């Protein structure tokens, strides 16, 4: 359903992503693995149009070209991004953040029912609707970010290192929630450092090293091979 071809991305003169192609199938969960600085987040920012990519790149969602779609329209097209660092509005309440999530027109119609479903998925947020997000713990903020993304009624969810900086117990809870989201039929593209958890969740994966894809395969293949280990700890 989602296809990104020949994506390159630069910061000034530094080539952070070098001619990468990836795809996500309908209802599929795909993970991009790689060590720090391999270019995972840059890739995700590029394909969600938050950062400019080289003109050779092609991004399509269900066949529709996203090349000319400005950043703020991507969510309207059906891709919701949960960025690294969560990107929540910390000075505002949980409720405000969720409301902001329902900004796109595609989300307006059954806004209220969806909110009910999402709050059922995140019971802790339901209790704290009036709380300012900045006063919540890192794990709770991550939940707000994911809940907000779901409010936009997305076809495809992009998650950038959701487990970053969270305690192991919270990471466990997070992945349990992600599994339920996946079961609800939302496709997912996940960038992660947490290899074990993300391969347990994902159907397929890519390994990124120094801006390039060095291997890809099903989650099972990647878990059993040593390429991932080498990508992280060197050869």
């Amino acid at each position, binding site marked *: 359903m989602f296809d990104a071809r020949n994506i390159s991305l630069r910061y000034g003169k530094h080539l952070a992503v070098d001619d990468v192609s990836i795809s996500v199938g309908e209802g599929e969960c795909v993970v991009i693995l790689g060590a720090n600085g391999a270019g995972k987040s840059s890739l995700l920012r590029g394909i969600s149009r938050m950062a400019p990519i080289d003109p050779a790149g092609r991004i399509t969602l269900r066949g529709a070209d996203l090349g000319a779609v400005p950043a*703020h329209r991507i969510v309207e097209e059906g891709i919701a991004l949960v960025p690294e660092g969560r990107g929540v509005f910390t000075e505002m309440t949980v409720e*405000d953040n969720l409301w902001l999530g329902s*900004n796109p027109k595609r989300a307006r119609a059954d806004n209220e029912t969806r909110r009910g479903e999402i709050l059922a998925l995140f019971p802790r947020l339901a209790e704290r609707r009036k709380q300012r997000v900045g006063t919540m713990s890192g794990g709770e903020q991550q939940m707000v970010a994911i809940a907000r993304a779901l409010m*936009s009624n997305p076809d495809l969810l992009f998650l950038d290192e959701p487990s970053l900086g969270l305690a192991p117990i919270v990471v466990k809870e997070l992945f349990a929630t992600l599994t339920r989201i996946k079961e609800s039929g939302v496709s997912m593209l996940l960038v992660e450092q947490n290899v074990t958890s993300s391969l347990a969740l994902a159907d397929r994966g890519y390994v990124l090293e120094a801006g390039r894809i060095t291997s890809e395969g099903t989650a099972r293949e990647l878990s059993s091979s040593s390429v991932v280990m080498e990508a992280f700890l060197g050869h």
Partner: protein
Amino acid sequence: MLSSTLIVGLVLGGTYALLALGLTIQYGVARIMNLAYGELVIAGAFFTMLMVTQAGLNPLVALILALPLGYGFSWLLYTVVLHPLARRSKSQGQLEVDSILVTFGLLFLMQGLYQVNFGGNFQGYQWLQNPVNILGTKIAGGRVIGLVFAVLIGALLYLAMIKTRWGVNMRAVASRPQFAALVGIDMRKEARMAFATGGALAAAGGAILSMYQTFTAVDGTFLTMKALVIVIMGGVGNLIGALLSGIIIGLVEAGVSVAIDPGLTLAATYAIFLVVLLWRPRGLFST
């Protein structure tokens, strides 16, 4: 004397708070430090005066008209002058310098136009000069109505900011502009809208100001300075902070002019400003 000072201070503070509200929306959302803000306030005052003296309208009708006119004018100003700068600048710092200089130019341009058309004298009109009695203090009716309308407009805007999608989006951009696109907000549209809204408040503030005091073609500069000080005191983008700081400055000015010297009001404002800058540079009400 204390209660009359208090009421004068509140009237002044209410108007200042309204002005600061407009400026903090402009600076907080559109990221434009608009030094010509006070000139738009004076435009509202001149407009009201003309409507009253030439067209024979009630000042309150002029106030209602000033709102959309201020909005439209600022919308145009942003689109024609400031948006090209925002698009051109590579960094926030560059945009800050450029917008300061350009709005500085607009300040002179508008002041010059006022002076050519109206001269440098005090301007104003007579309206509801009869004193009304509030808590044992006699105060001109125009002042009271001015305060009522300042509070009304301020409260409406505040409610809109809290309760409507328009306002929530605006606050989202003010607090974390870099995340706006994530929730489908078009920054450019939002910035233009915020700048125009600020302009509407400025024009309304000018209309209210003209109801109870005279003004000159060059008064805008001091109004801008006071509004800026209030915005920074309250914390940039902080609406409640701007409201409270506006009232504080109004009360301090009224107090200083009664207790020490009317010539020292700006010096007092600046003394407070300096203390705030040194003590809490992110505003009195920041968390």
